[in-house]
């Protein structure tokens, strides 16, 4: 990131925090205005709705332009790769110009040109490799290595967390191409987790790079879990990502390690998240915990599914209520630095998401059943009738 983009990003962090304080009523309008004036914004930013539209129409326009050029000039197979690379590189330059000279940030267009540009560069390079005679065994590692480098460089240059996340994904897919890919996943994740954790809190890095580090951290934790997950172990998920992969782990004597990993990684993440008050790790632990419970149900039939669901759901509700009560009963409504109070979060956005999600659970939210007068519930849906699929 350029120095001025990093500085703008740091100032943005302060303004966003101040808006949170104002939303919670912790400061007044005058204080917010003072913060905004002390930490001014020199970037061109769009709100969420405009940004989404700008992103969609930029992606559409760029792809249509490329398709138009191909349709008109009908380049041969040997030209398609270089053409895609040239187009992609020009879009990368355009991204740089937008972020640098035009001072754009959170504008939708620069993210679109970056992602589409990188896609064409990597895709074009893949075509060239194919033309050069590389085939599966060599093509995929080279392709994923290039994708990793390209997206990592983009994340560093433009501070886009989505590029960092994609770079991490490509990196793990690259490792899966190697012999012993599963163990490489474990080794790489074990190395990446502390490094990205440290980077995600480094005061030397601008907030955008810290967010990128968090994205890498999340991918690394998921990769570690996937490498040690019992279902992945038995199905050969990691080996399946390789072009010539075969699964020989199902009957391995190391299988108990996978059982332990499935059970312990979510618990360790939750414990670590609570102990160090790191929400990202806690959230990952909760998500992986749900995955582990589903896995447990698939492997061990302790009770009928309806019993598991009802008691699982009730346990989640009870756990949330107990945690709230426990935290609220502490001094000043907190324990160990954790509180159940929302502090400075934007609750309205979460409420909107919940209202939208509730539509799927509403009575009648199931496909039409012309002659069906019987109750055929399942999957959280129920009702004597059902919504039309047309609605």
């Amino acid at each position, binding site marked *: 990131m350029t120095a001025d983009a990093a500085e703008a990003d*740091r100032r943005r962090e302060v303004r966003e*925090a101040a808006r949170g304080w104002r939303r919670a009523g*912790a400061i007044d309008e005058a*204080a917010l205005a*003072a*913060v905004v004036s002390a930490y001014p914004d020199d970037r061109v930013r*769009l709100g969420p*709705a*405009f940004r989404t*539209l*700008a992103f969609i129409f930029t992606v*559409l*326009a760029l792809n*249509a*332009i490329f*398709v*138009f050029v191909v349709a008109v000039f009908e380049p041969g197979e040997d030209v398609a790769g270089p053409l895609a690379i040239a187009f992609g590189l020009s879009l990368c330059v355009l991204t740089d110009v937008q972020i640098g000279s035009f001072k754009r940030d959170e504008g939708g*267009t620069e993210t679109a040109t970056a992602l589409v540009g990188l896609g064409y560069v990597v895709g074009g390079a893949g075509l060239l490799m194919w033309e050069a005679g590389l085939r599966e065994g060599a093509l995929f590692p080279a392709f994923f290595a290039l994708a990793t480098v390209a997206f990592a460089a983009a994340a560093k240059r433009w501070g886009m967390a989505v590029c960092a996340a994609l770079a991490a994904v490509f990196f793990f897919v690259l490792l899966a191409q190697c012999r012993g890919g599963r163990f490489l996943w474990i080794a790489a994740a074990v190395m990446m987790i502390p490094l990205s954790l440290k980077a995600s809190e480094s005061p030397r890095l601008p907030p955008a790079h810290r967010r990128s580090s968090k994205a890498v951290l999340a991918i690394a934790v998921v990769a570690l879990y996937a490498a040690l997950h019992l279902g992945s172990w038995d199905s050969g998920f990691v080996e399946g990502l390789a072009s010539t992969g075969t699964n020989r782990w199902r009957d391995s004597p190391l299988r108990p390690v996978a059982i332990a990993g499935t059970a312990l990684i979510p618990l360790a993440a939750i414990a670590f998240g609570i102990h160090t*008050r*790191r*929400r990202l790790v*806690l959230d990952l632990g*909760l998500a992986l915990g749900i995955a582990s419970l589903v896995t447990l149900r698939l492997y061990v039939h302790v009770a*009928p599914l*309806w019993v*598991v*669901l*009802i008691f699982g759901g009730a*346990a989640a509700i009870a*756990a*949330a209520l107990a945690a709230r009560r426990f*935290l609220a009963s502490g001094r000043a409504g*907190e324990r160990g630095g*954790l*509180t159940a*109070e*929302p*502090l*400075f979060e934007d609750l309205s956005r*979460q*409420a909107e998401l*919940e209202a939208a999600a509730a539509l799927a*659970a509403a*009575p*009648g*939210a199931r496909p*039409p059943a*012309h002659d069906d007068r*019987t*109750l055929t*519930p*399942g999957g*959280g849906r*129920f*009702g*004597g*009738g059902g*919504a039309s699929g*047309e*609605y």
Partner: protein
Amino acid sequence: MQTEVDAAVERLCRQQVLSAAQADRFRRVARRELVSVHRELRFLLYAGILVTMAGVGLLVKENYERLGPLAIAAGLTLAAAGCLAWVRRQAPPFSWGDSASPHLAYEYLLLLGVLLLGADLAYVEAQFTPLGNVWPWHLLLMSVVSATLAVRYDSRIVFSVALSTFAAWRGVSVMLLETAFWSGSGQEASLRANAIGCGIFFIVLGAMLRRYERKPHFEPVAAHLGWILVLGALASGLGGDDTAFGVALLLTGTALAVFAFRRGRFSLFSLGVLGAYTALGALFLRTDPPFAVASLWFALTSLAVLGGLLTVHQKMRRRA
């Protein structure tokens, strides 16, 4: 750690923009000495309710012969009553305005109560058939009950359930009960007409809620669902022979975009722009253009829309 915020709090405190007490709290949050798990607890509650309801659905399906319909209906009634009784005990006095939630679980247990009530009503209807051939009317009943509870206990989540159940009632009724009434048109056209009607009803309902200040904060739920129904219904006709749906979607989307922009409602503005652009694209493709012309068309029109968006945004910034 938010190092920038931490440093800013020190500076703002020195400049007396923040008081010492404010600075202390903000500093603790910035340094991660105080962390909220509010979002995680809400997620657990919400997920717990959805999982419980999935289990209830399976329980009814797999055990209705073994447990008997009365036991199941009574069990569902008791569970729903338990949830709603707890909500009633916690509820603040009724207000037409936005009232603060008295408890973290308040809205979620209300939702669980409403969903259990819906399951109960549907089960009773399916087993004992009190409504006979007009059984889809139980969806209308459920919609009215949900809306009443949503208004009384001030829940936008339950209000969205009420609206979607109402739409479901119209959809099922058109397909099963009102075939004679809609016999002049095909089933698809009848459904589309009902979806548009429902959408308009929701939009008008939302406008009235806002105008008369009766739960005005429910308006976005009604308006968004209404516009999605209207635009979606019009878009569903794009594949047919008639160009009327394309023209109608183009005009409606444009009108919505202009209306929403003037009122600063940018999520509705996005819906309008996407609707209008989809219609324009579909109408153009009806002319069966060559591939190169079609791609040029999409390139130019996308760039034109993008240019329009950026110009409008620049004007807004200057005005601000």
